[in-house]
């Protein structure tokens, strides 16, 4: 069941009639997202009119909270499920369009710093998760999946690695549930820590992009802090996502050598197959903006389109998080994941502070 919630993915080869099944879920995403946006504006206006001191709660948080309430208090009718699963698709559309808010020089500078930090973060996270997996006597393939999920990009990386290393469905369900539960926790803890430490938008965004596993949660965590932090979180997370092919390939070769997975015959095709194409789309839009292909107003419109796409994503993050189902998945993988995440969060925080001191983010 958890698999159907966590991994229910929108397939691109559906017939037109099947494709219609996603409409109710997309409408629900739009409704929940817009309700979040409406609540932010309404509460701010109301508080101001009545001279109340009320904290500005961003639409991102409202959309996630409304989604969480719906998915955990009500029983989600089946008719909505395939449409809700499209939130990942909207996330990728939003990331590509967000490329319009970066000129190439920014991408090269911040993306270069992110990439350098990503390499260190991935290496240390993989080592750490393997150490914890061994210490807690988790099955080796489950440890591999947790390591891939927590070092690169959550659910997508686990799904990519599952096929490549022939892991069990049960192991991937455990790993996905742990990563999603921890992502949900990060959503609320990272911004609190960031505000407590008065981190700048750049530092927080980089930390969220490097420290939060799933792309949707990393984007939401950054956006919860501020619009600018959300932008940087997406850039850092995109650099991390770009590494998915290399790490999954290394695991595929490792398990194939042990005779427990199919051999990789064409490494270049494998890498291309696993490479997230939205990274290329993001770079292309950024390149077009850098060469002034769009006017200033058009760039603003592209940025707003990206925000609308993210709005559907944030609603989806809340709607697909079913805490009851996650709690059924057993404690050990969750404890290993949680320990790993806390250490990775501390490690990435140290890395970002170091980078800030060296390069002045």
């Amino acid at each position: 069941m958890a698999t159907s919630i966590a991994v229910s993915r929108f397939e691109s080869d559906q017939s037109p009639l099947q494709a219609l099944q996603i409409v109710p879920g997309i409408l629900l995403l739009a409704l929940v997202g817009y309700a979040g946006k409406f609540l932010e504006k309404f509460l701010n206006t109301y508080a101001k009119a009545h001279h109340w001191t009320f904290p500005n709660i961003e639409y991102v948080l409202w959309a996630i909270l409304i989604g969480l309430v719906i998915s955990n208090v009500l029983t989600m009718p089946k008719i909505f499920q395939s449409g809700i699963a499209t939130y990942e698709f909207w996330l990728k559309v939003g990331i590509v369009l967000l490329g319009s808010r970066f000129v190439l020089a920014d991408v090269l500078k911040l993306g270069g710093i992110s990439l350098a930090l990503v390499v260190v973060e991935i290496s240390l996270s993989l080592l750490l998760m393997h150490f914890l997996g061994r210490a807690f006597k988790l099955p080796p393939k489950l440890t591999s999946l947790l390591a891939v999920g927590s070092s690169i990009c959550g659910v997508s990386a686990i799904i990519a690695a599952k096929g490549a290393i022939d892991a069990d469905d049960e192991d991937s369900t455990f790993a996905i549930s742990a990563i999603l539960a921890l992502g949900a926790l990060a959503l609320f803890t990272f911004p609190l820590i960031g505000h407590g430490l008065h981190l700048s938008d750049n530092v927080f965004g980089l930390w969220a992009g490097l420290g939060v596993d799933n792309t949707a949660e990393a984007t939401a965590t950054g956006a919860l802090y501020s619009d600018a932090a959300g932008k940087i979180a997406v850039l850092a997370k995109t650099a991390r996502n770009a590494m998915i092919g290399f790490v999954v390939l290394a695991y595929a070769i490792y398990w194939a050598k042990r005779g427990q997975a199919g051999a990789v015959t064409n490494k270049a095709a494998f890498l291309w197959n696993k490479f997230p194409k939205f990274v290329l789309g993001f770079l292309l839009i950024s390149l077009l903006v850098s060469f002034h292909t769009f006017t200033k107003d058009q760039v603003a419109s592209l940025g707003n389109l990206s925000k609308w796409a993210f709005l559907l994503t944030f609603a989806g993050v809340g709607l697909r998080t079913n805490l009851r189902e996650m709690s059924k998945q057993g404690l050990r993988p969750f404890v290993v994941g949680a320990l790993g995440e806390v250490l990775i969060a501390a490690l990435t925080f140290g890395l970002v502070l170091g980078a800030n001191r060296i390069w002045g983010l």
Partner: protein
Amino acid sequence: MASKISENRHRFKLALDTWAVILALALALMVRAGIFKKIPW
């Protein structure tokens, strides 16, 4: 015959990632062409 059709269909099947890029680029093109004048937030 049926398997050939399904094979062809499989060959032209695009990943979701690619569809997301196509949609985003199509939207960007429509903004560039002035079909969408101003997207509000």
